[in-house]
């Protein structure tokens, strides 16, 4: 049956290609579109994902890393006494304006990092060193924001929140979900830029002792400090992402666009599979006449649909990784998680198999007598 299915499939190259294009199109679309979306939405948790903290502690009901509420900095001492906590440092996140050489302003997210530990500092530096923020007025910017910030050079002076700031290092790829670029500096200077008193902070970043469990430490923190919430890194990242997912129509519109594309691709596949069968109705009639059971005829169809799905999916995934390799940028990262690839393949396979059943009644009705009537 396999050879019969494969050979008759290959015999009609035109149709085979159309169907394959449909499968490949669907796979590429779902993965790239989905990957772009995931890449985009994951930026909402970027600071958390890369922040080197195992646990994030913030105001109760904290729901987005970029929009924190103030908590008293002195509470950090009580967190440090909790078993399992290796280190806890205050962290400051807030909005300010930066002057631009052209005379304009750009809103920035100021991140203040503990001087001693540099916990939560910028990463992936391409110019300068992380501890450069200890220099007077030192800030770290990201290369990817060059355009927005009008090409700041190392050593260049700017004003942030009306205070002096000097670019001392540059990172590559720290682009958050917001339009506002991140700038990293020391905690006290950040408080200055944000015009806050240094006795309030946004978060405590907690690193755990080896072997300590994040969820247990979180519970302990909540017990000691009922005013705060504490989440393991992954969870707070997800909470930050969910903030955008649920409060904007982002997920729905992206999802709908992807589904529409998928639908188009799949209609292409279903329609071609159907046409393939109609084209060869006579041959299926012959098979029935010489003793093929209905099951055997279907197994030919199923095998063909299966092959189409598998071959198309492989080609599609290769294309996806190519696209990802060449076109994924920090601005528009294409993040294709394994479950998206697997899910799209399963979906395509299911749709192919289902659409191979579309011509069911045509085959069913097929009278082997037809081969004798010329």
């Amino acid at each position, binding site marked *: *049956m396999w050879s*019969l299915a494969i*050979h008759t499939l290959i*015999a009609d190259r035109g149709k085979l290609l159309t169907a394959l294009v449909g499968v490949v199109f669907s796979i590429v679309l779902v993965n790239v579109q989905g990957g772009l979306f995931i890449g985009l939405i994951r930026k909402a948790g970027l600071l958390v994902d890369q922040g080197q903290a195992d646990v994030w502690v913030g105001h109760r009901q904290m729901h987005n890393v970029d929009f924190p509420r103030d908590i008293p900095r002195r509470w950090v001492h009580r967190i440090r006494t909790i078993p399992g906590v290796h280190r806890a440092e205050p962290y400051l996140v807030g909005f300010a304006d930066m002057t631009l050489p052209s005379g304009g302003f750009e809103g920035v997210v100021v991140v203040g990092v503990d001087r001693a530990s540099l916990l939560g500092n910028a990463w992936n530096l391409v110019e300068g060193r992380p501890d450069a923020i200890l220099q007077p007025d030192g800030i770290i910017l990201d290369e990817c924001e060059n355009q927005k910030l009008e090409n700041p050079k190392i050593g260049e002076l700017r004003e942030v929140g009306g205070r002096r700031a000097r670019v001392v290092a540059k990172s590559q790829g720290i682009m958050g979900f917001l339009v506002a670029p991140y700038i990293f500096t020391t905690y006290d200077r950040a408080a200055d830029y944000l015009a806050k008193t240094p006795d309030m902070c946004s978060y405590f970043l907690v690193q755990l002792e080896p072997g300590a469990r994040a969820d247990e430490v979180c519970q302990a923190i909540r017990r000691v400090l009922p005013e705060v919430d504490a989440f393991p890194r992954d969870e707070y990242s997800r909470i930050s992402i969910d903030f955008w997912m649920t409060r904007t129509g982002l997920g729905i519109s992206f999802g709908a666009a992807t589904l529409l594309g998928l639908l188009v691709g799949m209609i292409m596949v279903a329609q071609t599979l159907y046409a393939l069968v109609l084209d060869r109705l006579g*041959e299926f009639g012959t098979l029935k006449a010489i*003793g093929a059971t209905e099951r055997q005829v279907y197994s030919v169809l199923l095998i063909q649909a299966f092959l189409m799905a598998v071959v198309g999916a492989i080609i599609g995934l290769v294309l996806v990784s190519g696209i990802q390799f060449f076109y994924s940028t920090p601005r528009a990262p294409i993040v294709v998680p394994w479950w998206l690839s697997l899910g799209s393949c399963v979906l395509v396979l299911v749709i192919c198999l289902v659409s191979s059943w579309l011509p069911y009644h045509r085959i069913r009705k097929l009278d*082997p*007598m037809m081969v004798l009537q010329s």
Partner: protein
Amino acid sequence: MIADPHNDALPTKDAAAQEPMAGDLAVWAQDIHKTYRTSSVSTPVLGGVDLAIPAGQCAFLAGPSGSGKTTLLSILGCILSADSGTIRVLGHDLMRLDEDGRIAMRRNHIGFVFQRFHLIRGLTVLDNVCVPLTLRGVPMPQAQERARRLIEAVGLAEKVHAHPRSLSAGQCQRVAIARALVGEPKIILADEPTASLDAANGQEVMALFRKLTAEEGKTAVVVTHDQRIFPFADRVFHLENGHVVQTGQPNALVHV
């Protein structure tokens, strides 16, 4: 009527008493009726056909267009079922078979040759000939070996890997004959096997068909209009208006 030496071999209406032995008659049919019915019209086609074909013989069904030859052949080939009558093919009571039984009968015991060849376009000659064995679940290497033997036997050894579209009509019909024989069925049914071929090719193909079926002692039933191939028949049944009007040996009938 023309004298028919086989006529006395026809079983009487009392079928139960004189049931033919399987080794005796490959096909034995009595009083077959068939009417095509659609929602509005019913077309009576066979009105009581009797037929007896001894095993190993080649019988022709002849007669004018619309006389029901193809219908009769389809009934013998389990493609169609008769409305009433008694039909035994290779000892199987066709009237008692259900759909699955008919399919199994076609797959395991009957070889078909069609006027329009009905080869599968995408398959090579070899793969086409393998199809009946594939349907029976014979493993590919074994199927191919048997198919090759038959392709050689029909003289197409150098065309095993050719595709049907690159073959002439005569060659296609040879492939079809190989396909009909590959499963070693005891009976071969052919509907106008030479009608799509020119005279010379028709003669050649019939000669080959006859040779191969005779060699293996197969029974053959051939529907044809073509009087020029009558000499290949052991006997000819003449149908007209749904009845067998004449049965006889071909040389006697050729001149009718």
